[in-house]
């Protein structure tokens, strides 16, 4: 086919992709945006299949097998995954994209006998490095999110120093190899192993409340490798798509950092999980409340607010919380949800979870709305959130999270914390909220506790 027409199609695809992404950032048009992006990428793939190349070996059989197998796995896993497992799924997909980009570098090197111009080798090796880091980093994140890897299994001594040294070695090797314009097979393998090692030391020490930042960053990283792969294969759509993903990932990373009042660098080099939280030890007795008493209190409240966190996802409590909402609204209780931007393990995690349970938009309050609402709330129920309601952020300058904007429960009449036990939260920080005058604890599995409350409410 005429090369001009193909280039024209690619140009149209690029515009569709930009418009699609623009629409994806607006609630009314997001669905449309996703479809537009799909059309754009589909066109890009079609053009790539027929574009005239120097050597036309084509190997269409392999391409067909690859797309068929990949498409099948992609669709099935996308259909099967429960909404609660979304952060893991996104990480996994992201890792696959990174590995795919790294393989592009590998294939390029074999096809070109491991030699090329200085800039070529430099770009290809940079792509190999970033692709492998995005891949293994996403796998580590996947392991952490799905609970297969625990933070304490991933303690690397002096991880900050190790990190910087390995990164410098990798950069040095890229410079040397590209200056030579050649590297051997074994050097390539060694470089790959080093890249994988860096990926692990990069992500492993970051955990807990910093997880949404890591996910967003890895997303950006895959976008950047996609863009570099676009340079390698001289494809403008890849370059554009990759850069757009990279920018969106960076924006999300910065947003998440802002929501935690932390500098990006301190997330990646600060070793949040290394120190055991810091802050003053809190002494005191936590008061308990029974589900039956809580039910009565709720029935006679005017305003109730749920503060969800990662624990709600773990306990799968979103549907039962929605039931509680319905029962209490029938009793003329106003019912809202206070969403902290970094609640959960992924940007926007709580919104997706509650949407799955059919909770409507207008009941979700963002940080500022929530904080003014909480001042006049009768009962605030904390379901599996911890660090985002920790008053140390406001009161204790020695605490690790001091200065992080939180949901402030100081003026709320009654605060009920649903919790399994008195263990500190994911970030390993003591939470003085549990010992406050207006706080009571309801121990046990969040889902079971709310089930009991619902049963009791029927009798009130």
């Amino acid at each position, binding site marked *: 086919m005429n090369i001009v027409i193909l280039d024209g199609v690619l140009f149209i695809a690029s515009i569709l992709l930009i418009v699609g992404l623009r629409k994806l950032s607006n*609630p009314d048009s997001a669905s449309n945006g996703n479809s537009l992006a799909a059309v754009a990428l589909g066109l890009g793939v079609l053009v790539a299949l027929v574009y005239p190349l120097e050597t036309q070996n084509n190997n269409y059989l*392999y*391409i067909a097998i690859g797309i068929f197998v990949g498409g099948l796995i992609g669709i099935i896993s996308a259909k099967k995954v429960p909404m609660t497992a979304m952060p893991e799924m996104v990480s996994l997909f992201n890792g696959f994209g990174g590995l795919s980009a790294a393989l592009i570098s590998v*294939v390029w090197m074999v096809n070109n006998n491991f030699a090329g111009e200085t800039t070529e080798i430099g770009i290809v090796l940079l792509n190999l490095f970033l692709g492998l880091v995005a891949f293994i980093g996403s796998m580590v994140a996947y392991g952490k999110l799905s609970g297969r890897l625990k933070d304490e299994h991933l303690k690397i001594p002096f991880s900050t120093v190790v990190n910087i040294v390995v990164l410098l070695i990798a950069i040095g090797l890229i410079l040397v190899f590209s200056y030579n314009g050649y590297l051997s097979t074994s050097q390539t393998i060694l470089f790959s192993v080093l890249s994988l090692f860096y990926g692990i030391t990069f992500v492993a020490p970051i955990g807990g409340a910093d997880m949404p930042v890591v996910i967003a960053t890895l997303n950006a990283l895959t976008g950047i490798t996609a863009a570099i792969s676009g340079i390698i294969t001289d494809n403008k759509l890849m370059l554009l798509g990759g850069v757009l993903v990279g920018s969106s990932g960076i924006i999300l990373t910065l947003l998440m950092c802002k929501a935690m009042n932390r500098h990006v660098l301190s997330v990646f080099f600060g070793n949040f999980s290394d120190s055991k939280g810091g802050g003053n030890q809190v002494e005191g007795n936590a008061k308990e409340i029974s589900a039956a008493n809580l039910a009565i209190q709720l029935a006679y409240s005017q305003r109730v607010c749920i503060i969800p966190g990662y624990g709600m996802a773990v306990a799968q409590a979103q549907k039962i919380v929605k039931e509680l909402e319905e029962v209490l609204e029938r009793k003329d209780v106003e019912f809202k949800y206070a969403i902290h931007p970094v609640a959960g393990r992924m940007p926007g995690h709580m919104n997706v979870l509650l949407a799955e349970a059919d909770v409507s*938009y207008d009941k979700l309050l963002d940080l500022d709305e929530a904080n003014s609402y909480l001042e006049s709330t009768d009962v605030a129920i904390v379901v599996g959130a911890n660090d985002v309601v920790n008053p140390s952020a406001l009161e204790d300058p020695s605490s690790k999270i001091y200065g992080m904007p939180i949901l402030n429960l100081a003026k709320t009449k009654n605060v009920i914390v649903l919790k399994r036990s008195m263990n500190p939260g994911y970030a390993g920080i003591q939470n003085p909220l549990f010992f406050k005058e207006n706080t009571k604890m309801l121990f046990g599995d969040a889902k079971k506790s709310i089930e009991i409350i619902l049963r009791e409410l029927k009798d009130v």
Partner: protein
Amino acid sequence: MNEIIAFFEQNIEIIYLLTFAVFLGFEVISKIPTVLHTPLMSGSNAISGVVLIGAILLIRVTEPTNYFPLIMATLGIILGTINLVGGLAVTSRMLEMFNKKKRK
């Protein structure tokens, strides 16, 4: 020094494109509401599946008898497709959930 200048001259088109695309990316995506953080992330994650295109372009110039790069590229296509198709499908599932509620 001359090499660096030559490099810029040869690649001026791509440097332009790269710079504009970065600004474009930041402009297009700034001011996203919290509700859309996850769909935007999984949607943009799906877009990074464009690497599939690169894998296709490379496998098409690979020698049909050179099995190692053939297999690597096929694997690249599989992984890229999973990223692309899976990401788009997951995003549309999520957005459907939001829409369903709105109509009520």
